[in-house]
Structures are given as structure tokens and as C-alpha cells.
């Protein structure tokens, strides 16, 4: 078959296929595996920070995406695996920071109340003296 005898449209279609393949080429396996590992770590950190009690929605979202990322890894869909892992990591970090801020806010409220109670006590002592 002579190349020149091919219909121009066929040649265009072939070029398109090549371009599309180049554009949609799957990312490497290694970055996907690394991203999933980092996300796993982030989820663990969120759990130690108290996220199960303080940021349950974000944590379960992170866990669900981790699970799907692992499924995608198993299916060798590295692009999806990496994207899900990055999302899971973002969710896990948000869960951790939410837990941290909840604890810090609680501590701040507690000490503010302590200081106020102390002030009240001193005011009472002073007014008793007078």
C-alpha cells in the first residue's frame, strides 16, 4: 500500500491518535505510589491529632479517597491514584489542622475563663476588705 494513496482524512486521524496518546499518557507509577504513601502518613497524623473526634467528616473523606487511590493503584490507573492521593492528603491535613485549632481554642477559652475567675475572686476579696 502506497503511503501517498492514503486518504488525507485517514492520515489526519492517525496524527490525532498520536497526539491524543501523547497528551493522555499515564503518569509514572513511582510518583503515584509516593503520593499515596505521603497521604497515608497525613491520615495517620490527623488521627493522632484527634481528628476522629474533632474533624470526622474531613477524616472520613480522606480515608475514602485513600481507599479509592489504593484501588486505582491496584488497577494500574496511576493518574487517578495520584490525583486521589493528593486530594486525600489535602483532606487529612485539613482534618489535622481542624483538630489542632479545636484543641487550641478550647485551651484558650479555658485559660481565659481561669483568668476571669481569678479576677472575680480578687475583686471579691478586695470588696470584702473595704
Amino acid at each position, binding site marked *: 500500500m502506497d503511503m*501517498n494513496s492514503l486518504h*488525507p482524512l485517514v*492520515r*489526519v486521524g492517525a*496524527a*490525532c491518535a498520536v*497526539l491524543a496518546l501523547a497528551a493522555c499518557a499515564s503518569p509514572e507509577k513511582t510518583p503515584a505510589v509516593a503520593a499515596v504513601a505521603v497521604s497515608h502518613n497525613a491520615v495517620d497524623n490527623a488521627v493522632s491529632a484527634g481528628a476522629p473526634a474533632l474533624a470526622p467528616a474531613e477524616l472520613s473523606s480522606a480515608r475514602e479517597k485513600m481507599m479509592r487511590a489504593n484501588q486505582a493503584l491496584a488497577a494500574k490507573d496511576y493518574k487517578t491514584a495520584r*490525583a486521589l492521593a*493528593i*486530594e486525600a492528603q*489535602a*483532606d487529612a*491535613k*485539613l482534618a489535622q*489542622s*481542624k483538630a*489542632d*485549632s479545636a*484543641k*487550641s*481554642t478550647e*485551651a*484558650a477559652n479555658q*485559660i*481565659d475563663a*481561669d*483568668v476571669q475567675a*481569678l*479576677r472575680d475572686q*480578687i475583686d471579691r*476579696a*478586695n470588696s470584702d*476588705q473595704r
Partner: protein
Amino acid sequence: MIIRFHFLKSLAFAGALLLAACSTVPTSTPTLDEARADFVAANNNPQIATYASLEFKQASDALDAANRAAAQHESLDAIDRLAYVAKQRIATAQEVARAKSAQAEVANAARERDKVQAEARAAESDRARRDAEAQAAAAQTQAANAQAQAQDAQMQAQAAQQQAAMLAERSARLEALLVELHAQKTERGMVVTIGDVLFATDRADLTPGGMANVRKLAEVMMQNPDRTVSVEGFTDSTGSSAHNLQLSERRAAAVAQALTSMGVPRERVATRGYGEAYPVASNDTGANRQLNRRVEIVLSNAGQTIPPRAAQR
């Protein structure tokens, strides 16, 4: 040449197809819009700049990636995923800023609490010191008062003692003088008798001895201003009653005159002549008659008047 031209035409067509495919992708998604709005809010939060600059930079990079994907017309799904990550990172930056600002508040409150406690302790010790000072001052005042009272009491005791000593001395002096004058205690008062020998015979002039006795009596009266005297003259029964009465009066007046001349106020001296009345002995012998010729000076008791002479015996 024709073939090459055809090839170039084919390439242009393929590009146009791709562009056509991508032109259906919008430049934004709802998630990207949310992420952009969240970014603006975070950018306006001063606490983010203070406490979460690193997290905000990461969020900003994530949003840039999503915006780039949108500008390059990547798939809706790809843009959404990147926008979602950006959105979560912006939220993370907000939470980190909240946590760190709360931690800063805790540190501040702890300092505040320490300060308040220190103030309370200072106020407490200040109060204790003031109380102690007030108590010390009160105790001092009390001690000073007690001392003043003790001094007053001592002074009063001394004054009383001095008074008592003075009275005792005056009393002793009076006693001594009365002894010297041979005064006799009677119901009417102390009676000092100036005998006949102290007058010139049958006359009313006192002898120097009589004057000496009168002077002692004047001294007694000067020292005891609350006493008065009654000077009473008597004679024996020799001679006429009128003469005797007159002589007795003159002798009494002579004694009163002598007392007055020694400074005794006249109003404290009463005189009376009784003549032959009230003899102290019978008139049968010369010695007895001499006893009857006399002047008796009755010294009143302190502050009292002299009762009148009892009826003649």
C-alpha cells in the same frame, strides 16, 4: 510540494479539531469559584499572614495550578480536582491560623494570669502590712494613753500626799502651839487661859509674857483661817461688881486689840467681860483669887461657831 502542502493542511485540521474539543470546557467550575472566594477571604485575614504564611503559600500554589488548568482548558474533572485541593489547603491555612492564634492567646492569658496573681499577692501583702501598721499604731496609742493615765494617777497621788503632808504639818504645828499655850480641850473648843500674872496689876496692859502668848495664838489663827476666837475676861470677887465687870471687859479688849495688831482680822475676834462670874476657884485665898483673875480665849473648832457659855454654876 503538493504532498507537503497536504500534510500541513492535515496538521492544521487536526489542531482545529483539538481546539474544538477543548473549546467546550468552561474557564471555571463551581469548585474553582468557591476556591477563589475562599482565597480572597483568607487573603483578607490578617491572622493568616501572621500565623500561617507557609500554609497560605501552599494553598496559593494549589489555586494557581487550578487556575492554570482552567486557562489551559483542561478537563472539567482535572480542574475540579485541583480546585478541590486548593480549597482544602486554604481551609487548612485558616485552621492553622486559628490554632496558632489560640495558642498565642493561651500564652498571653498565662502571662495575664501570672500578672494578676502577682498583683493579688502584692495587694494581699500590702493589706497585711497596713493592718499590722494600724495595729501597731493602735497599740502605741493605747500604751501612750496608759502611760499618761499612770502619770496622772502618780501626780494625783503626789498632790494628795503633799496635801496630806501639809495638813499633817499644820496640824502638828497647831498641836505644838496649843501645848505651849497649855490649851485645854472643852466642849466649846480649845481654851487658852492668860493668867493674872500676864497683866499689870489691876490694869489691862499685857506684860511681855502675856504678849508672847497672844503672839502664839495669833500665829495659830493666821494658820487656821477657818477658826474664830471668843476672848472672855474674868475677875475675882474683890471690889465692886461694876469695877470688876469693866476690868474684865478691858482686859478682854486688850487681848483682842493685841491679836488685831498682829494681823488677825477683827471680825474673827469676839470679846466679852464676865466680871466676877464663872470663877475657876473659890475667892477665899489670895492664890485662888489670882486664878480667878484671868482672860480665857476660846478657839473655835475648825469651821464652827463657838457655842455660848453654859449657865452659871
